C-alpha cells in the first residue's frame, strides 16, 4: 500500500478518534461528519489494500508493515459491522484510536521494515489464507478486549454509583452483546486459521516458531470460546468473561512479542 494513502488513512482515523473523544468529553452525541468520515476512511483503506493486492498480485499482508495495516483495517471494519448489526451505539473512539496507532506503525520506515527490504519467499496459498484468517481473528480479539475494557469500566462506575449526567456509550448489556459477538467471530475465524496453521506447522522447515504460534492460537480459541459462552449464557458473570477477553489480548501480545513478533505475516506470500 502506497505510503501517501496510508498516511491519509492514519490522519482520517486520528481525526475521527479525536472527534469522538471530544464528543465524549463534552457528553454529546458523536458528530455525524465524524461517523461519515470514519466510514470513508475504512473505504479508502480497503481501496488501498485492494490496489496493493492487485499491484503485487498477492495478499495485502505480505510483510509486517502490510500485516499491521490489514489488521488496522480489520479492526475498524469489524467495529462498523458490530455497530451496524447490534442496535448499540458504541461511541467507538478507542477503535479508531487503536486503528490509527496500528496504521501509523505500519507506515514503512516508521517502525516497520520497508517493503523493498522484506525477504522474498515463495508463494503459498494455504499459508496466506492462514495468515489472513489469523489477522482477522486478531482484530476480533482486539475488539473483544476493547469492549471488555469498556464493560469493566462501566461496571465499576455503575457499581460505585458514579453514573454521571450525560454518560455516553453503551450500557453493560450493550457491551455484553458486542463483546459476545466479537468473541464468537474471533473463535469462528480461529478454527480454520488453526487448521491451516497445523498444516503449515507440519510443512515448516523450522517448526518451533510455528508450533508455538499454533499452541497460542489453540489457547486463544479456548479463551474466546469460554468468554463467548459466559457472555451468552451467564451475563451475570460478565466481569469474568471480560477478563477472559483481556487475557486473550494479552496472550496475543505475548505471542507476538516473544514467539513470533509480527511474524504471522512473514509466511504470508
Amino acid at each position: 500500500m502506497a505510503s501517501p494513502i496510508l498516511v491519509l488513512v492514519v490522519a482520517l482515523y486520528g481525526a475521527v478518534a479525536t472527534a469522538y473523544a471530544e464528543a465524549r468529553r463534552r457528553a454529546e452525541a458523536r458528530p455525524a461528519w465524524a461517523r461519515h468520515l470514519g466510514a470513508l476512511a475504512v473505504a479508502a483503506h480497503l481501496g488501498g489494500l485492494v490496489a496493493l493486492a492487485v499491484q503485487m498480485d498477492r495478499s495485502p499482508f505480505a510483510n509486517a508493515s502490510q500485516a499491521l495495516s490489514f489488521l488496522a483495517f480489520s479492526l475498524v471494519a469489524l467495529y462498523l459491522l458490530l455497530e451496524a448489526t447490534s442496535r448499540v451505539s458504541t461511541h467507538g473512539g478507542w477503535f479508531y484510536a487503536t486503528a490509527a496507532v496500528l496504521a501509523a506503525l505500519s507506515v514503512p520506515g516508521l517502525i516497520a521494515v520497508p517493503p523493498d527490504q522484506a525477504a522474498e519467499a515463495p508463494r503459498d496459498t494455504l499459508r496466506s489464507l492462514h495468515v489472513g484468517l489469523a489477522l482477522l481473528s486478531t482484530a476480533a480479539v482486539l475488539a473483544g478486549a476493547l469492549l471488555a475494557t469498556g464493560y469493566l469500566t462501566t461496571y465499576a462506575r455503575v457499581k460505585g454509583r458514579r453514573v454521571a449526567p450525560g454518560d455516553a456509550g453503551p450500557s453493560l448489556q450493550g457491551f455484553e452483546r458486542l463483546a459476545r459477538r466479537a468473541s464468537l467471530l474471533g473463535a469462528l475465524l480461529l478454527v480454520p486459521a488453526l487448521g491451516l496453521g497445523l498444516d503449515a506447522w507440519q510443512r515448516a522447515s523450522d517448526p518451533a516458531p510455528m508450533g508455538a504460534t499454533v499452541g497460542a492460537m489453540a489457547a486463544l480459541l479456548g479463551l474466546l470460546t469460554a468468554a463467548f459462552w459466559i457472555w451468552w449464557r451467564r451475563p451475570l458473570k460478565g466481569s469474568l468473561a471480560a477478563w477472559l477477553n483481556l487475557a486473550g489480548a494479552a496472550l496475543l501480545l505475548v505471542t507476538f512479542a516473544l514467539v513470533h513478533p509480527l511474524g504471522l505475516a512473514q509466511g504470508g506470500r
Partner: protein
Amino acid sequence: MHVYAVGIDHHLAPLAVRERVALDPAGAAQVTRAVAGLPWVGEALVLSTCNRTELYVASAAPEAAELALAAFVRHVPAAPPPDHGVYRLLAHEAAARHLLRVAAGLESAILGETEIQGQVRAAHERGRAEGGLGPVLDRLFQAALRAGRRARAETRISDGSVSHGHAAAQVVQRVFERLDGHRVLLVGAGEVAQQVGRALLQLGPARLAVANRTPEHAHELAAALGAERTLPLAEVPEELAHAHVVLLAAGPNLIGRPDLERALRRRRDPLLLVDLGVPRCVDPSANELPGVFLYDLGALERLVAAALGARRAAVPDVERILQEELAPWLAWQRGLGALPAIRTLAQWAEEVRRAELAFLPADLDPALREAVERLTERLVNRLLGRATARVVQGARADDPSLPTADQLERVFGLREEAGP
C-alpha cells in the same frame, strides 16, 4: 417604544398565590386581547405556566410600568392588589433579559428544565393569534426562543436527571440498553413508586409486575401502569430470580442478602435494585454481590445533585449566549428610538421642498415639472440620507462619537428649544 414585564413567579409568590393567578390557554388569550386593546399599549403578550404568570407589554407611554401593573391586576382574575409584594416589575433591558433567562430555563424552579421553551413558544403564537404581537415583542420572543434553543444545544444546562424518577431511569440505561421485554417489579403502590415507575416505563415496553401489601392498591397501580400481573409481598424474594429491575418503595428490610444470594444462583442476567424506601427496603450490603447494583435514595439524590451541579456550572455559558442573542435586539431597539426625530426631519424637508416647488412657473412644461420634482426628491434624500443613517447607526451601536437624534433635531431646529 419600551418593553415592560410584570408578573408573579415562584421566586416571590407562594404556590397558593401562583395557582390563583395561573391562566389556562383560553384565559391567557383573553387577557392578551384585553390588554392589547388598551390605548396606551402598543403590543401585549401573556406567558402563564405553573411557576409564573407574566404580562409583557411594549409601550411608548412614560408611565407604562405602573399602567402595566395596574392592567395585570385588573385583567388577571384573582390577582393580588399591587401593593401585595409578590409582583416583579421590570422595564427596558431588564425586562428583555428576564424573558431570555426564562426561555433558557435559568428562572425555572428546576434549573434548565426544557418544558418552558415550549411554553414561551406557545405564548408567542398566542400573542400573534390574538393580535397582541408587533415588531418589538415579536423580535424579542424570537430572540428568547433562539437563546433557549442554543442554551440547550450548546451547553449542559439541561443535562442529567433532576428527579428521582429520571435518575433511576438513567441508572437503568447504564445497565440495560433499553427496557423492551425486560421484567420490572414494582414493590409498593404509593405515589413515589408510581412516579418512578412511570419514568422507567418511558424506556420501553417492559413486562411489569406490581407487588403490594394491599392487593387492591396493587391492582389499581397495575391497571394505571399497564402491568402484566400483581403479586403479594411474600412472593417478592422468589421473583428476584427473574426480574431485571426491582423498584422498591415499601416497608423496611424487605429483601435480605440471603434472599439475593439464593436468587443469584438461579439468575443469568445482572439485577438492578432501586430502593426508594426510608428506612431502606434492601440490605445495603447487597451492592457487594457481583452482578447486583443497588441504588438507594441517597445514591439517587447524589445523581440528582451531580446533574444540578453540572447545570449550575453551565450558567455562565448560558449567560454568554443570552447576551449574544439579546445584543442585536437591544441595538435594533435603540435604533427605533431615533425614528421619531428622523420622521420629523423627513416631514420638514418635504415641506421645504414643496414650498420651493411652488415658485416654479405655472405654465412650465409638465415633463420638465416632473423632472424637477424627481430631482428635488433625490436631492433631499441624498442630503439627509447619510446624516440619518449615521444617527441610526450611532443609536444602535450606542456610539457617542456618532450624532444623536437629539443633535439632529437641534441642528435642524425641529423642536422648540427651552429658553435661557
